[in-house]
């Protein structure tokens, strides 16, 4: 049964080392057809434009990526209607994006970046401006890849996990209920009536 709410990739911050293997895999899986990127770095002829952004501080690191919000602010503010809901996921149509940056400002997680948009090895032409086209770039959960998110597959420390919030809740509910059973058992006050 398809998930009622948007799936998203969540990070186990204890396991993530900040190695960016996810960023490289993400770039590769989205550019095999578009910029004929192969399996080796040598086949890359365009700048690496990932859709998730590893962020590192002294004590920890994690890739920040789209949560596919249900009332997504980015979709709400996009006047160009370039952001739409496909199934339960939020998808950006990079060709339609005019780079107005509203979605970047609306997203509270910083999960969207404005990155150059390359097709066939060349930056897509911008109507008249000298620089090439840029577009909003955010996680699309590899919704066209039958094997699911590439980042989850390549993470050397298995820190990334595809999360269905309803399925997780069911599991946690059972554990919480069992815990309450233990609490009730230990509480004489609950058992005997005066």
């Amino acid at each position, binding site marked *: 049964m398809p998930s009622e709410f948007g799936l998203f990739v969540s990070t186990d911050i204890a396991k993530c080392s900040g190695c960016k293997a996810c960023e490289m895999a993400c770039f590769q899986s989205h550019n095999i057809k578009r910029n004929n990127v192969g399996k080796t770095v040598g086949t890359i002829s365009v700048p690496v434009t990932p859709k998730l952004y590893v962020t590192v501080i002294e004590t920890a690191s994690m890739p920040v990526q789209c949560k596919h919000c249900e009332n997504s602010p980015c979709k709400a503010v996009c006047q160009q209607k370039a952001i739409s809901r496909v199934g339960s996921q939020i998808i950006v149509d990079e060709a339609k994006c005019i780079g107005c940056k509203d979605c970047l400002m609306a997203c509270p997680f910083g999960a969207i970046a404005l990155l150059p948009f390359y097709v066939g090895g060349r930056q897509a032409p911008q109507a008249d401006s000298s620089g090439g086209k840029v577009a909003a770039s955010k996680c699309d959960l590899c919704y066209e890849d039958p094997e699911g998110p590439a980042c989850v597959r390549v993470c050397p420390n298995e820190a990334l996990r595809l999360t269905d919030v309803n399925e997780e809740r069911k599991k*946690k509910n059972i554990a919480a209920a069992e815990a309450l059973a233990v609490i009730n058992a230990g509480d004489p006050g609950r058992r005997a009536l005066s």
Partner: protein
Amino acid sequence: MLCIGCRTCMIGCVVAHEGKHIFEVDPDGYDFHPKLKVIKTFNVSVPVQCKHCEAPACMAACKSDAIHIVNGTVIIRTEKCIGCKSCAEACPFGAIQMVTLGSARNADGAPRSVANKCDLCQDQPKGPACLRVCPTAALRLVKEEDLGQTLKNKRLATLGLALGAEAQKQAAIGA
């Protein structure tokens, strides 16, 4: 141990939050989203709901400033919720459920889905409805002083046990 899994609390919760008008309006004209959920496993039947933690993981995870502690109760202001599901993921009890609202709409017309969890019937004069309607009085509101009292009772009981054991030991030595 007292819960018999009849789920009266779940309807009581909805009636307390949606109001009594739901018994007159069109059957699909209101939202039926209980803020607690009766779970039945092999060992237990019991409603699982928000524990109103002191350092709530959901509040920490919320980037939309929608979750706050209002005099001891952890409250989600759903009008600010963007449905990013971080709180639902953060809560270890699964006490937060994402629910789709019937009438509310986003700026772009899409239906709103927001985080839904127990608010201890914050605005109800008589306090939590689930507690009031439960036929076997299985639910209990644990206030700060109750917690203190429970701890005190347990410690006294522990002391009592220890004294009893000590007395027995003396008797054994004496005999």
